[in-house]
């Protein structure tokens, strides 16, 4: 994606409904386990994906948790 489009994406954020940072943290472990199990995490925990697209800090936490749990299970 071009830098201008990325900047516009950051400025306008996701379009859909999203959870708050607190709810995101509360559900993050369940969300990651659903993803690792190959289930539809976005259908089971709506609002998480949009929040992760809009919040760089929560997205980092998500990326770290899924990477660490994946590594621990191999």
């Amino acid at each position, binding site marked *: 994606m*071009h830098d201008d489009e990325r900047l516009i994406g950051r400025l306008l954020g996701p379009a859909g409904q999203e959870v708050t940072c607190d709810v995101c943290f509360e559900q993050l472990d369940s969300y990651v386990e659903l993803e690792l199990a190959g289930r539809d995490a976005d259908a089971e925990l709506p609002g998480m994906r949009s929040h992760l697209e809009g919040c760089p800090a929560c997205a980092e936490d998500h990326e770290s948790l899924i990477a660490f749990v994946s590594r621990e299970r191999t």
Partner: protein
Amino acid sequence: MDYESQAWLAALRASGSEREAATARLHDLLLRAARFETSRRRDSLARIGAAELDDLAHQAAADALVAVLRKLDSFRGDSRFTTWAYKFALLEAGVKLRRRAWEGRELPLDVKGRPPLADLGPSPQAGAETSELLDAIREAIEKELTPHQRDVLVAVTVNEVPIDVLAERMGSTRGALYKTLHDARRRLRAHLGAQGLRVGGSDA
């Protein structure tokens, strides 16, 4: 709840040496998670030495241990206990790393002492539609948002200041600032949409 998670809860709620041993095992797990995070982010923290990074991992593990033990009753078994606990260590390590990376750095400010909007302009490669949208966004930021919404939006999305670093400097919380950011984005989308500009997706 799975058997392993039940065993963790029982051991951490026990007394005496059983609880002590479980707490020590939990601390080891949290330290491993925190070290994983500091190791992953090492490249973006070139100024920080290995000893300081390890110290930071220890601080994150210690803070995470306190948080996990304090919130033990809120664990409902929706995930494995270890996955639930790891997130506290990764959060603590992530926040500490972002704050350390910005330690001693001033937040970017313009001549009026506000987060600068200067970088918000289309690149030479931008097409007409993108340039028009960016111009409209810049105008809407100045005219449609409250000063606080404008400052938070510009700092986080244009100047790319981590939201928890910004929260610390503004005496606020990550959650409160994200709410401000969310409201600002909604306002921008509504304004741009009313002007007939394509902003992608829908707010339904």
